């Protein structure tokens, strides 16, 4: 094995590159990214990273890539994969041969259909450059309209309020965070935002967005409209599968991989936001996760498999969000749960445990100030991984340590 090429220099690609060296890979490693920066952490971009702006929070400094003999190609787009010759063709005409290829191409923001292409006043948030652009438009008294009540939109709303901007958040569904977050928690989040002066409009039907040099406007289907200095659209992400698709690799809501993260081409693997994979703890259900920890975990695991191992994906989905002083953490997948048990932890913090029809713990969702729910969510994640059927009474009483349930 002489050359492993990684397409996509985000958290996942970078983690895979370092993990290859940590696991003793001696060959060449090339890490190719379209952005001008070394790999950086994306989660801060909607949080403190937006408020602080420059520079991004790098996954590692340049010296560490040098030490690990990882060739990082920045500002380089991969145009095509030639599977027969086992090479990737770059936009600048160069071609790089691979023995094994990792696609860690990530995802891009889902565009609103028919949104005006006015880069100044209608933006999306994914990259450091996006964050800088949004940051420059936010100041005390400036009006920000956010389309989409998911994590990116809500975190951006909290950050924009800290910067003094006036914020209206527009969600098409009856409540915010309807994908994967229980209603009780979404209610707390909504209330917290309203306390801070964020206007949240749910069940909204947007007819059109309009923007010119002077301002932007959101037009609703009922004829009403809102003026803003800036509109940010945060309505989810779509996986970057174009390269794989063009090369004839199987795509199924993301680049389809098996439990070893291998694509339909045995020499090509995919990991992170761009891939869909079977989740062993959920009866092999195929999912695609847009999550920081998943990117890291899969990056580490795929490194071993690129070197010839056959390690299986077995992690439980986990993600978090920070808004004001609140942190929300979720482990597992709650859809399909039959019952929910609540555990109150004090200071307003609580966790909802979601059990399926057979009493098996399938998810836990918590919210509270600071890291109040972190430890119990982590233990819940381990209970989920163990396939455990904890006693609901024990889950609901904070005096019962979850660690004891894990040992049981």
């Amino acid at each position: 094995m002489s050359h492993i090429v990684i397409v996509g220099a985000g958290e996942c690609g970078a983690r895979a590159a370092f993990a290859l060296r940590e696991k003793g890979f001696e060959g060449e490693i090339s890490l190719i990214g379209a952005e001008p920066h070394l790999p950086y952490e994306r989660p801060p971009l909607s949080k403190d990273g937006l408020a602080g702006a420059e520079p991004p929070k790098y996954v590692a400094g340049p010296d560490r890539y040098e030490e690990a003999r990882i060739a990082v190609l920045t500002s380089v787009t991969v145009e095509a994969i030639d599977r027969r010759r086992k090479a990737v063709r770059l936009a600048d005409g160069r071609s790089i041969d691979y023995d094994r290829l990792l696609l860690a191409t990530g995802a891009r923001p889902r565009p609103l259909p028919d949104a005006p292409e006015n880069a100044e006043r209608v933006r999306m948030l994914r990259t450091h450059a996006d964050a800088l652009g949004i940051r420059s438009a936010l100041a005390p008294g400036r009006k920000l309209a956010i389309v989409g009540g998911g994590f990116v939109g809500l975190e951006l709303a909290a950050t924009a309020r800290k910067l003094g901007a006036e914020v209206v958040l527009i969600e098409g569904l009856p409540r915010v965070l309807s994908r994967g977050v229980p209603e009780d928690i979404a209610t707390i989040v909504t209330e917290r935002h309203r306390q801070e002066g964020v206007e949240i409009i749910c069940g909204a039907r947007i007819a059109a967005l309009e923007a010119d040099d002077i301002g932007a406007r959101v037009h609703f289907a009922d004829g009403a409209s809102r003026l803003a200095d800036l509109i940010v659209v945060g309505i989810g992400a779509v996986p970057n599968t174009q390269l794989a698709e063009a090369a004839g690799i199987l795509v199924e809501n993301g680049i389809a991989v098996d439990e070893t993260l291998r694509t339909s081409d045995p020499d090509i693997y995919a990991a992170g936001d761009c891939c869909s994979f079977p989740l062993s703890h959920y009866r092999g259900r195929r999912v695609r996760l847009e999550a920081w920890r998943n990117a890291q975990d899969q990056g580490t695991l795929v490194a071993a498999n690129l070197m010839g191992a056959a390690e299986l994906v077995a992690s439980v989905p986990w993600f978090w969000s920070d808004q004001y002083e609140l942190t929300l953490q979720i482990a597992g997948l709650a859809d399909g749960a039959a019952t929910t048990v609540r555990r109150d932890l004090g200071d307003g913090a609580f966790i909802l445990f979601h059990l399926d029809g057979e009493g098996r713990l399938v998810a836990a969702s918590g919210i509270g100030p600071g890291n109040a729910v972190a430890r119990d969510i982590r233990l819940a994640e381990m209970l989920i991984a163990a396939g455990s059927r904890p006693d609901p009474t024990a889950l609901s009483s904070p005096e019962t340590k979850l660690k004891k349930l894990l040992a049981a």
Partner: protein
Amino acid sequence: MSSNWVEVCAADDIDEEDVIRFDHEGRTFAVYRSPDDEYFATDGLCTHEHIHLADGLVMDDIIECPKHNGRFNYKTGQAKGAPVCVNLKTYPIKVEAGSVFIAIS
């Protein structure tokens, strides 16, 4: 270098395989009791994003940061891989007459 022994808490105030936060003169520490009933002390904040480690989970000789799951061996301070790469500082610790003391130099 003279050490300054500071009383942290009663030995029983920390459960086995657990951690507490200890603040002293503007500094913050994490003080651990291992599953085999030994005591250890480290700096209180994760070297990745300055999160209080005492909100994290102790498993055997590992403390895991509550925010991003960075892991350290709390006995040695060694960072156990991404996202943490900088080791934690550790401090001498002793138990005397049922109380825990750490040495802050």
